């Protein structure tokens, strides 16, 4: 399957933060959700993908091209949405369009107008008066108006009201119909991904944990609940993370079938949410932290 984004053994370190041997590939024609807690490297990764940062080592390629030789060609094919305002505050949408549209070879005024109508965006109001939701709609309008093949979004749904979040997800879903577009977006609102993501890429502390098809995650991972006396040094090895309470334990396994075989009917096995997976992975890294509730 063709990859649109390919990160290979990418390392990048700042003061007190490091991306380690990050290898990610994002498949063409699908929506990939990019999850991880705050400060684990999601925005840094997105900046690396957009060439806003250069890796210390490793390679970043998009559409099979690299930024050194094809920077403009690559950026022509990307639509981007960042968390927060990146426009000139004292300008209006019309001004911004005049500034941004000449940059793109494939700019399409009719699409722009269509989204402006659909989102009911004011063309003559200063951007600084826009609410968070309007800002997001404006960003999205620009991202979609030049027939971009790849849409990259950094936390697009954070701070949005639930109604617009759903609308946004519908729009993204509709965009995918022709199979030519690819969407890569980071979020920590994992319920958004339940609706639309085909793949999930999970990073923690600057390290890639997994990239998996969404349905595979549900097949493989499971939340296991049972009494604490079932746990010993061997059985604990079965889990990625365990949370012990006064009433029993709750744990995450990445091999549902095996866990079922080991514990049988003595435990309850449930479908995990992405949040469970994030939480227990973090816990597992901190080595079985205890919490009493």
């Amino acid at each position, binding site marked *: 399957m063709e990859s649109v984004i390919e990160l290979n053994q990418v390392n990048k370190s700042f003061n007190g933060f490091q991306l380690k041997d990050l290898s990610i590939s994002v498949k063409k024609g699908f929506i990939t959700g990019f999850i991880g807690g705050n400060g684990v490297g999601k925005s840094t990764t997105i900046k690396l993908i957009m060439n806003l940062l250069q890796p210390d080592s490793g390679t970043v390629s998009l559409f099979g091209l690299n930024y050194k030789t094809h920077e403009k060609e690559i950026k022509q094919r990307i639509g981007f949405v960042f968390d927060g305002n990146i426009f*000139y505050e004292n300008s209006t949408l019309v001004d911004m369009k005049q500034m941004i549209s000449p940059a793109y070879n494939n700019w399409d005024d009719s699409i722009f107008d269509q989204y402006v109508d659909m989102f009911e965006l004011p063309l003559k109001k200063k951007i600084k008066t826009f609410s968070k939701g309007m800002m997001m709609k404006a960003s999205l309008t620009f991202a979609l108006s030049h027939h971009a093949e790849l849409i990259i979004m950094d936390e697009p749904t954070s701070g949005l009201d639930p109604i617009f979040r759903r609308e946004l997800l519908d729009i993204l879903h509709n965009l995918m119909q022709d199979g030519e577009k690819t969407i890569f977006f980071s979020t920590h609102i994992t319920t958004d991904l339940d609706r639309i993501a085909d793949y999930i890429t999970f990073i923690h502390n600057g390290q890639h944990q997994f990239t998996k098809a969404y349905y595979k995650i549900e097949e493989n991972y499971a939340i296991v609940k049972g009494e604490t006396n079932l746990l010993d040094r061997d059985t604990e090895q079965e889990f990625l993370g365990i949370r012990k309470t006064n009433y029993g334990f709750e744990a995450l396994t990445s091999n549902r079938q095996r866990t079922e075989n080991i514990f049988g009917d003595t435990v309850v096995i449930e479908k995990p949410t992405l949040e469970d997976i994030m939480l227990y992975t973090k816990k597992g890294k901190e080595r079985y932290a205890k919490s009493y509730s």
Partner: protein
Amino acid sequence: MLNLIRKDILLQKNEFLILLPALFIYLFFGTSITSITWISIVFCIGIIMVVFSKDEKSSINLLLNALPYTRNEIVSSKYIGAIIWMAFVLLTISVGNWIMHSEMVQWKQLLLITSIVVIFISFAFPFCYLFKSRYLMNASIVLFCLYLVIVNTFIVDLNDRIRNIVHTILSLENTQLYLFVTLSVVLLYVISWILSIRIYRRKVF
């Protein structure tokens, strides 16, 4: 890259509508060569630095770098833009002076203005890419205060001295010297340009 310069013009259009009449009013009242020289320099540097500072926010850098431009183009657009703004102010002054006082501005005077502005920018741009134009602003306020203090206490005739120097420079007849100055200024600008590209290439937003 032309798109980036066009963007700056679009962003700046309102300020122009205010600046142009201001420039004309000043021309109308100020007639001496020194004052025209002085005011041209202030207008040139003012416009160029305002245009520059609008793009300084890291969010705007995020936008510009995410659009299909390279970092070289973003920096170069500022250097080429500066020349365009300067040409614009000088043209306005020349035309204004011709209309109001029916006399042409001396080419030597234009050269002097251009040289001073270019020298200023050659230092200011790399400095601002490395730090922020706000510091430069603070520095100029301090310098201005210092100037006031000097004029009022130490060298009372500082303005006259400057005026004399300007007159002396403008009355020189040595073409070779002018050529040498022009070349040095151009060289300085090019070096500053290359330096800014290097600084901006490593910048993190």
